[in-house]
């Protein structure tokens, strides 16, 4: 049940990383690129979709969400970096507080079944509660925040346009931000156009794709480049920054040091890499996967079996990963 309209993918103010695209949209206003599964994300009924996304965009960019009005979502999730934080291994919040993890990119969240590196959050709308109130992030008190928004010159009108009345509540804030970030769609890379038969890949990129399908796609599954699961890709625990990953959520021994399989779309823009930002370059990442003897004991079998990759193999895989950059 979807109509083709001009789908709002990203605001014009955001850099050319991911651009306005024409896709069919779901009844919830979420773009449906060809080949993608049905989105998991749903908006609540009774809202004006376009106004909701516009309100969400405004909130996403507005430092009003932080305790001292210095930090917005965008401070950490930079539009030109597929909404990751370029060159920052760990996140930086209010008063320069350093977080415990690397800022992930925000893409295709409408298809994601859990959020955060350990999947601790199950619902996209609920997710922004975490940065808004988090001590190392925006550190806001919710009562104060609602007061600030309600007495702001612009927000009551924007809430009325989105929700029908100008009452500002925490659930409304969360729904608007959730709806905005759910619209970050990456589906217009050279890879996508190659799959759609509209573009070609070079010899080395094609070889990279084959190697990728053989060694990486069991976790980084096409077309989202994640299977939405959790795995250990063999990183050794970081002694300076202990993080037991998925275990923190399930308390299940076998989840120790497992993390959410991240998407690899726009991966060239989202360095540094991994939950603690330990690798600066894609060649460091490939060197990691190609060193079976250096893998941590918890590594999943599918990572162990990658084995040493030749220099050419590594370069070709990287060449393929570069085709995942949105045009």
């Amino acid at each position: 049940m979807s109509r083709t309209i001009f789908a709002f993918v990203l605001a014009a103010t955001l850099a050319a990383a991911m651009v306005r695209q024409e896709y069919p949209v779901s009844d919830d206003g979420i773009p449906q690129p060809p080949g993608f599964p049905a989105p998991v994300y749903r908006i609540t009924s009774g809202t004006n979709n376009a106004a909701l996304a516009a309100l969400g965009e405004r909130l996403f960019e507005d430092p009003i969400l932080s305790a001292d009005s210095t930090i917005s979502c965008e401070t950490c999730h930079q539009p030109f970096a597929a909404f990751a934080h370029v060159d920052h291994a760990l996140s930086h919040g209010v008063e320069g507080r350093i977080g415990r993890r690397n800022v992930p990119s925000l893409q295709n969240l409408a298809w994601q079944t859990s959020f955060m590196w350990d999947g601790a959050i199950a619902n996209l709308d609920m997710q922004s509660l975490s940065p808004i109130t988090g001590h190392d992030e925006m550190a806001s008190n919710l009562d104060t925040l609602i007061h600030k928004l309600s007495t702001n010159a612009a927000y009551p009108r924007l809430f009325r346009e989105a929700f029908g009345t100008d009452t500002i509540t925490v659930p409304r804030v969360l729904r608007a931000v959730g709806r905005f970030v759910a619209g970050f769609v990456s589906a217009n890379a050279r890879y996508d156009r190659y799959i759609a038969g509209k573009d070609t890949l070079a010899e080395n990129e094609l070889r990279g794709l084959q190697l990728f399908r053989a060694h990486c796609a069991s976790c980084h599954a096409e077309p989202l480049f994640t299977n939405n699961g959790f795995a250990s890709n063999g990183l050794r625990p970081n002694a300076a920054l202990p993080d037991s990953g998925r275990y923190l959520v399930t308390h299940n021994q076998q989840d120790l040091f497992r993390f959410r399989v991240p998407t690899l779309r726009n991966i060239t823009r989202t360095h540094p890499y991994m939950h603690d930002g330990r690798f600066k370059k894609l060649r460091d990442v490939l060197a990691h996967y190609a060193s079976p003897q250096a893998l941590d004991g918890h590594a999943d079998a599918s990572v162990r079996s990658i084995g040493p990759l030749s220099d050419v193999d590594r370069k070709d895989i990287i060449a393929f990963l570069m085709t995942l950059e949105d045009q």
Partner: protein
Amino acid sequence: MRCDSVRAAACQVLLLALLTGVCSGQGTVQVSFAPSFRGAALEFDTTVYRTTRGADVTVSMLKFYVSNLELRGRSDTVRLAGEHFLMDLSDPDRMAVSMRAPSGTYNALRFTIGVDSSLNESGPREGALDPRHGMYWTWATGYIFSKIEGTVTTPQLSRRMFEIHIGGFKAPCQNTVTIDVPFTHPVKVADQQMDIVIDVAVDAFFDADGGFDIAARPSVTDARQAVDVAPRWRKMFRANE
């Protein structure tokens, strides 16, 4: 949305049914929760209570979600309300819930302390479940079902805060608690409002089952830590008749 005539007619029938229902056999039940410590009304903040384990405690907060309220008769059970109510027993305005119930004679009240698992994973909600009430773990998915907070002092330990936050909606940390409160005198629901007062014995939290070592565990703040603490809530409720 436009209400067409068929719907309007249906609405009227429904309304009529409701109204006649009211006249022929419904009453109002108010369930209120009264906090106590060893039989006396609990005084927040000011009074120091000694637990059987020898800790001196003051209580500054007692909040919980109550849901799935049911009145149980000899043969039938009526569900009172589908909603979740947030009780804050330090706030006189947030100690009671009022609901409609069919007329009849009832022997027990049953309710859940906690939030249904499906609501934990769905999107943000207004009203009692609004995360603004501070009853949601923001770094992970899930409501905090109950909070007891205060201070603890022992001969070995200078005064410090304690916070017992219970939540957890998924096995193996499924920490909702079902409470059955039997009445010694059956409760009759008829035309007038029926008041049911439930005594919430905070002493039982600290003292039941050999006692809770609050000095050793002053901080319970996630579902896993709460697993062995949540069942203590079962001991806290009885009808005040």
